[in-house]
């Protein structure tokens, strides 16, 4: 059976070049970077070279890059770390309703600790209005954390404008850029009002279990894991050297190929969308065709529930994700789609198609060819579609 993977916002395969540079650090170059002997020094050199490479790819200096075990840890460190370090200045933090759970759950934790959180709304396309941020800022606001790109609908936030507002008020600005890496060129020299930026390896054809955070020089932040003096005392724990080496390579390839990939993914997703809307009535686009990262398309097929679509596609070898409650382990539809004021029955049917660098036009044609029958089969069973027709 043909297999088509369209769930790249969940994770991506490791690029062969990335795997290749990692392998020696599992085997002969296995040393602990904190050791002073030859094995350790060899690992330390690799670690610092990776840091320098990541820094230069982002326009940062190497002492502003800290490796973590992934996007979630980076987000936790940014939110909780700055909240605690600056609690004398204030207890108010601003984020949005459509953040990743790593941010939202960190904020919920802080609420229990006495912090006050404002969750900014988004418009129907999943974008935070900078005016809303301006209105929400208080005297005691210490941090604003807004994601660069939303993982479910691919909406791109107005990071430059948002971070300009916080800069004027001397408030830290953090962005979760996990879904933006490799899709939008990112340079923190240009985006000079950003104070912190979270990254993840496995979303950019790197390995799982590794990520990084850019923390601009001078930002007051409390470490969140305690132990040895790794990562300049910001993050204790022996560094995942093979992962970090792989991450640096993955980022290098992602930055190198960003333009080509965008062209490729824009073409694939636009043709895919056109084919589907031509063949299937009542297809709803959640988000915007232009204000999005080009790999992501979030669609609802009216009258059809998301999990039953995932199962149907899976039986044909196609992997996608859904905003349905059934797939999230909760009883409510996606918080992102709800924040976009999308009706529950449409949100329950949302399917996220997220393309990646290995997808081809053949994949698009295959999935577009099998979808119409699937949708009409499920619609023929649906009490919601019959009602309207």
């Amino acid at each position: 059976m043909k297999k088509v993977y369209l769930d790249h916002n969940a994770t991506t395969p490791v690029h062969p070049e990335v795997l290749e540079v990692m392998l020696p650090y599992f085997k002969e170059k296995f040393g602990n970077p904190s050791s002073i002997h030859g094995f350790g020094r060899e690992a330390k050199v690799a670690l610092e070279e990776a840091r320098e490479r990541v820094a230069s790819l982002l326009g940062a200096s190497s002492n502003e890059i800290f490796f973590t075990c992934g996007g979630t840890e980076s987000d936790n460190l940014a939110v909780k770390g700055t909240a605690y370090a600056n609690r004398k200045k204030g207890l108010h933090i601003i984020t949005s309703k459509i953040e990743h759970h790593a941010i939202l759950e960190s904020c919920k934790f802080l609420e229990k600790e006495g912090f006050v959180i404002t969750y900014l709304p988004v418009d129907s396309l999943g974008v935070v209005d900078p005016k809303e941020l301006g209105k929400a800022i208080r005297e005691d606001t210490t941090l604003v954390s807004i994601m660069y790109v939303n993982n479910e609908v691919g909406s791109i936030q107005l990071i430059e404008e948002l971070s300009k507002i916080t800069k004027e008020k001397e408030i830290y600005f953090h962005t979760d850029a996990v879904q933006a890496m490799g899709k939008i060129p990112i340079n923190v020299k240009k985006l000079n009002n950003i104070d912190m930026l979270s990254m993840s390896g496995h979303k950019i054809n790197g390995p799982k279990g590794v990520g990084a955070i850019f923390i601009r020089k001078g930002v007051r932040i409390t470490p969140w894991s305690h132990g040895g003096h790794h990562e300049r005392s910001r993050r204790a724990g022996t560094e995942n050297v093979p992962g970090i080496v792989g991450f640096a390579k993955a980022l290098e390839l992602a930055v190198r190929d960003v333009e080509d990939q965008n062209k490729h993914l824009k073409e694939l997703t636009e043709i895919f969308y056109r084919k589907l809307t031509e063949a299937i009535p009542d297809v709803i686009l959640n988000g915007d065709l232009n204000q999005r990262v080009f790999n992501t398309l979030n669609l609802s097929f009216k009258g059809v529930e998301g999990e039953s679509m995932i199962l149907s596609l899976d039986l044909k070898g196609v992997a996608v994700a859904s905003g349905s409650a059934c797939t999230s382990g909760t009883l409510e539809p996606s918080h992102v789609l709800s924040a976009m004021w999308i009706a529950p029955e449409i949100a329950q049917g949302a399917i996220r198609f997220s393309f990646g660098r290995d997808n081809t036009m053949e994949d698009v044609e295959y999935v577009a060819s099998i979808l119409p029958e699937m949708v009409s089969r499920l619609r023929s069973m649906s009490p919601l579609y019959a009602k309207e027709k």
Partner: protein
Amino acid sequence: MYSAKVMEHFQNPRNVGEIKDADGVGEIGNAVCGDIMKLYIKVKENRILDAKFKTFGCGAAIATSSMVTELVIGKTLEEAEKISRDTVAEALDGLPPIKMHCSNLAADALHKAIEDYRSKKRIKEQK
């Protein structure tokens, strides 16, 4: 995560559709939780002659709907009333724990359909 039997019923659901002159209809669920089920029954001399369903929902919701129609056709109303959520789940070789409460609504829809049939019958008899 689903049993082979659930997947089989999901792929080839039995008794999909509506009964235009149904004697009882049971509707249950809402869009917020993600499952909406509508069950139609045809009753003659206290026995369920036919049952059909329409369901908006996940694989478990569709499979339990299909299974309940299969279990119920030919049964007396009293026998049908004994069919519970657990009966349906067992007949499908089990459901994942999270689906036991959120998507296992077919038995409830059946009970509502029987209730609907009985209340219609009472109204008719009063006339």
